[in-house]
């Protein structure tokens, strides 16, 4: 079966981890509390690089990149966060799993005996699972195995319900590109049998324990931990995603994410503003009022998402009291209710991509109290299933684990401290300062693409290229219009007041302050990022834009905000009224 990987629909299921979709790759990266946010960002960078270098079949390269990264990371930093990727390979898919991530095949006709279905578990492997498979008959479910006994299943039928509403799944409901929070995704062709309303057997089978599956989730830290926690992680994810994926098709809005991260009040950050404010009330509300209600309460915990960002949520919430539980934008609840009532309301809200931000953002306090009472929807649910997850919430003992809640808000500050500590320990410790290259015959590290060593000038074809990883050498320099130069040995932010950038304060980016009296230069105007052996220029949404011109071109070309532009030697760049030139001594033949 010849399938174009990028046309295969993917459905997101709620959760707090990062889901990634780029040309040729879908992936999940776990963000358990306590994992290193840098690790997730690094992984994302790797995945992105692989996707960019071989968008049609990144499978092999990706597996190699991930193995290399993993072994190095485990040597220096201990256990890496779990992650998994399904990527296109020459004639099928490549699967790479590590940690608590699984891939299982979902085929809902019984022809295929269960033992013939794909079923891979990252935690069963000594190190990683690394497979090449032909295209599976059904859909592949890539999820973070969050609940204790690993039984948590993605409600494939939720998608079916969606799909059956009117023909195939609406285009906007799929996950096409970018990074979004979630607990897993169902990746597979919408075949006939999938769009059939197989709903019949839904409730009985998997639907049961799905009740509010992973939104409430949290294996360890108690029911609430994840919700606010994820808002923090999301924010960084959103930022990274924005920065990383060429700025297109970004699900999460960078701005809001960043703001949350800095915890800095900003205009228009309704979602973000809401978050910190409401987090605690919400927690309290949940803590006190939720337990009493019946079992289904589990189902309401997810409502949290009622996402302030989603348009017209209030009205919806108030108007449709019964399905509020379902109203939770995310897919799973729908099946839990299982009843035909569900589709209408959720179909509007489930929108997986846009609400991405939403599910994590706790609803305004006002909303919270409203929700619990109408557990009317809960009653059926109670009948339905063993609400394993609800029990956690219900039980008294479940209370203490809520401890993780408070850290959620200050989390960014913690990472800032970590960064500072890292910085103090020496730049060398930062994994992003390392780069893979070939050594020349005199052992100098070089870009695999150059023909002569940058240090000693020897030809690079003397050695068979074996990739080694070492600290990145300077990749060139910026010659400013006044004659000053900046050697590019780190990531820089350029602007009138670059210190106002959160990343600068955190120490991940270094500021280059430019003086410009014309007023055309934004405070944070553009960013220079070292990515592998490339120097990338990114306009940071400046008011007057960032312009580039090749060596002998007279006309300026404006970069789109957040567009990644790889600088070639001799490229002139204009920000505001200031110009600079990028130069490099890399000996590329062309």
């Amino acid at each position: 079966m010849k399938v174009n990987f990028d046309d295969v629909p993917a459905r997101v299921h709620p959760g707090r981890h990062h889901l990634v979709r780029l040309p040729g790759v879908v992936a999940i990266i776990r963000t358990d509390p306590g994992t290193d946010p840098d690790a997730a960002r690094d992984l994302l960078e790797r995945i992105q690089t692989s996707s960019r270098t071989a968008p049609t079949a990144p499978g092999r390269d990706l597996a190699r990149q991930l193995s290399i990264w993993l072994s190095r990371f485990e040597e220096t930093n201990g256990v890496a966060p779990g992650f998994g990727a399904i990527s296109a390979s020459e004639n099928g898919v490549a699967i790479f799993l590590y940690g608590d991530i699984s891939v299982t095949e979902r085929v809902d006709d019984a022809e295929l005996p269960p033992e013939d279905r794909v079923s891979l578990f990252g935690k069963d492997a000594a190190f990683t699972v690394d497979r090449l498979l032909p295209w599976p008959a059904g859909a592949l479910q890539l999820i973070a195995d969050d609940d204790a006994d690993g039984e948590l299943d993605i409600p494939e039928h939720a998608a079916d319900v969606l799909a059956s509403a009117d023909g195939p799944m609406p285009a906007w409901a799929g996950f096409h590109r970018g990074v979004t929070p979630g607990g897993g995704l169902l990746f597979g062709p919408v075949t006939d049998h999938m769009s059939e309303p197989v709903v019949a057997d839904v409730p009985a089978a998997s639907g049961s324990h799905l009740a509010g599956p992973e939104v409430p989730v949290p294996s360890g830290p108690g029911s609430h931990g994840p919700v606010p926690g994820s808002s923090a992680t999301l924010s960084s994810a959103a930022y990274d995603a924005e920065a990383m994926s060429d700025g297109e098709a970004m699900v999460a809005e960078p701005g809001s994410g960043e703001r949350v991260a800095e915890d800095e009040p900003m205009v228009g950050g309704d979602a973000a503003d809401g978050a910190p404010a409401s987090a605690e009330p919400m927690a309290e509300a949940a803590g006190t009022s939720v337990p009493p209600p019946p079992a289904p309460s589990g189902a309401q915990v997810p409502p949290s998402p009622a996402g302030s960002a989603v348009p017209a949520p209030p009205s919806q919430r108030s108007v449709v009291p019964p399905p509020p539980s379902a109203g939770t934008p995310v897919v799973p609840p729908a099946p839990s209710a299982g009843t035909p009532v569900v589709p209408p309301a959720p179909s509007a809200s489930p929108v997986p991509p846009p609400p991405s931000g939403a599910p994590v953002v706790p609803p305004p306090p006002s909303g919270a109290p409203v929700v619990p009472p109408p557990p009317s929807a809960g009653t059926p649910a109670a009948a339905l299933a063993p609400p394993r997850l609800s029990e956690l919430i219900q039980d008294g003992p479940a209370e203490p684990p809520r401890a993780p809640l408070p850290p959620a808000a200050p989390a960014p500050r913690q990472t800032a401290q970590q960064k500072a500590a890292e910085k103090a320990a020496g730049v060398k410790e930062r994994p992003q300062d390392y780069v893979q290259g070939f050594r020349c015959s005199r052992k100098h590290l070089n870009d695999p693409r150059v023909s002569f060593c940058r240090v000693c000038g020897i030809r690079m074809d003397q050695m068979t290229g074996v990739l080694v990883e070492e600290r990145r050498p300077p990749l060139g320099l910026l010659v400013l219009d006044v004659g000053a130069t900046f050697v590019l040995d780190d990531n820089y932010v350029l602007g009138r007041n670059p210190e106002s950038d959160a990343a600068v304060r955190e120490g991940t980016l270094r500021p280059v302050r430019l003086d410009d009296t014309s007023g055309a230069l934004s405070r944070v105007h553009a960013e220079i990022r070292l990515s592998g052996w490339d120097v990338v220029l990114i306009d940071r949404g400046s008011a007057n834009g960032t312009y580039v011109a090749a060596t002998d071109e007279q006309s300026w070309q404006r970069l789109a905000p957040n567009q990644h532009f790889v600088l070639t030697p001799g490229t002139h760049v204009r920000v505001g009224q200031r110009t600079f030139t990028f130069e490099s001594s890399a000996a590329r033949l062309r």
Partner: protein
Amino acid sequence: MSGDQPLPQSAAPTTEPGDLTPELIDTDIWTDEMVARAGIPVVPVPFVTVGGGIGSFVTVDYLRIYGVPAQQIVVLTGLDVPWQSYEYLTRVSQIPRTERLRSDSQSRPDNIWGFPSYALSEAFAAKSLKEFLWPLWNVFTEPILTNYFTPRAGQAFSTMEKEMNRIGYLQSVRKGQVRMVRRRAGGGYYTILTPPAGAAPTKRIAYQSQYVHIAIGYPGLRLLKDLQDYRERYRDPTKVVNAYEPHEQVYDQLRIRPGKVIVRGGGIVASRVLQRLIDDRDKYNLRTEILQVFRTFYTGPHGKNVFNRRPGGHGWAYQGFNYPKSVWGGQLKEKMAKLEGDARAQAYEEMGGTNTPFRKDWLEQLKRGRSQGWYREMQGAFDSLRPGPNGAGVVVAMSTQHGALEEYADFVVDCTGLEADIRESRVLADLLDHSGAGRNPKGRLDVNAQFEVIGTRSRPGRLYASGSSTLGGPFPGVDTFLGLQISAQEIADDLARLGFVKRLGPGRSIAQWWRWARNRPI
């Protein structure tokens, strides 16, 4: 399919199929069984040329014109086109396509007959009478009334491209890195190629051939130790540059604010860098200051006797081409062919040495600089380099005839293009270690007058080499366009004697020239 027992895969690469085995690496002469045991696929082809630069191109051009079909030739290379590496080096050393190379009008790598020469071609492509007459007048009166005619770099590359397409050169090209050439038991050679990752099912491919030609050029630059030390120690790639590396940033910065540059060296590249600095100075009205440091400072004409004189002055030694013209066909060629050992090395010493062509334009620029005080030259040798006060500029410690001296400069442009030892090339080192090749008096690969590498014969096969890795042989000037052509002709004639190809007699030669002239495929 049941995926319940995932197989953990280690990240460490294990031995790939078709890789070299220790047995192969340790054995000088390979049998077919050994190669088969290693699982390396074998491709039989009569003639293999390694390198893929202009040396390989010229040799293939000769063989194709002599009548060898393209299918019988394989070019193993990492380059996309033969002149890629050459063009890169000329471009960064300030000879872009519009500037003139230091090469004779008749040495055309795209034309084995040398007729019409570059000058004639340029004249006939002219769009005005002056442009038509100038090249003709130039070659007619050179070097007495005018300087030697030299072709534009762009002309050399575009004509080579035309010839490359005419002979179907790219059909013979196989991309990859050559790891080694070893003799084969029973005659001929195995050439091991490492194709680009993923391009072939096995890590290596063996080309089994009767004849191998090696033209891998010079193994690379050897930057002087002071320069390398500075780079590695201060991690600063900006202020101290080698002229054979991209260094536009130096000119960029000088355009923005005035600065002082130390130029080291007295070769062609130094003169190009000076010309660029002064051109920019004039064009943008800059106040660039230049100090030039010669290791050997010529104050006037020099040479061992009146018949062996070379003009010089202000530190420079002037010579039209990098060899006296007579090495390509005159009495010097005859004389050199008879010299062996130290006598040959001595002769090379005498005619070699760093020199640069006498061209009026930049010599006038220097004269102006001297009189206005912004250009100075001196004799000296660098001892060390270190960053200047507050990290600005560079302080160069030198020893001169008059003692130690420290000079401050904003930039140092190093124009000493030393070539690395042939052992730095893995292929050549392997030839020395395992295939019986030796070194000539200049330390390069020892070849005979037919450009066969002495000591490597694997009857009935032969191994040839040409280009700069054979410098120091009985024929000087091998590292020039004309030198490459002469060696290609010697090789083709030798192959004709062995019966691999028919000799090119006058009749066929004229017919082939006619095809060339009309740009008809062979």
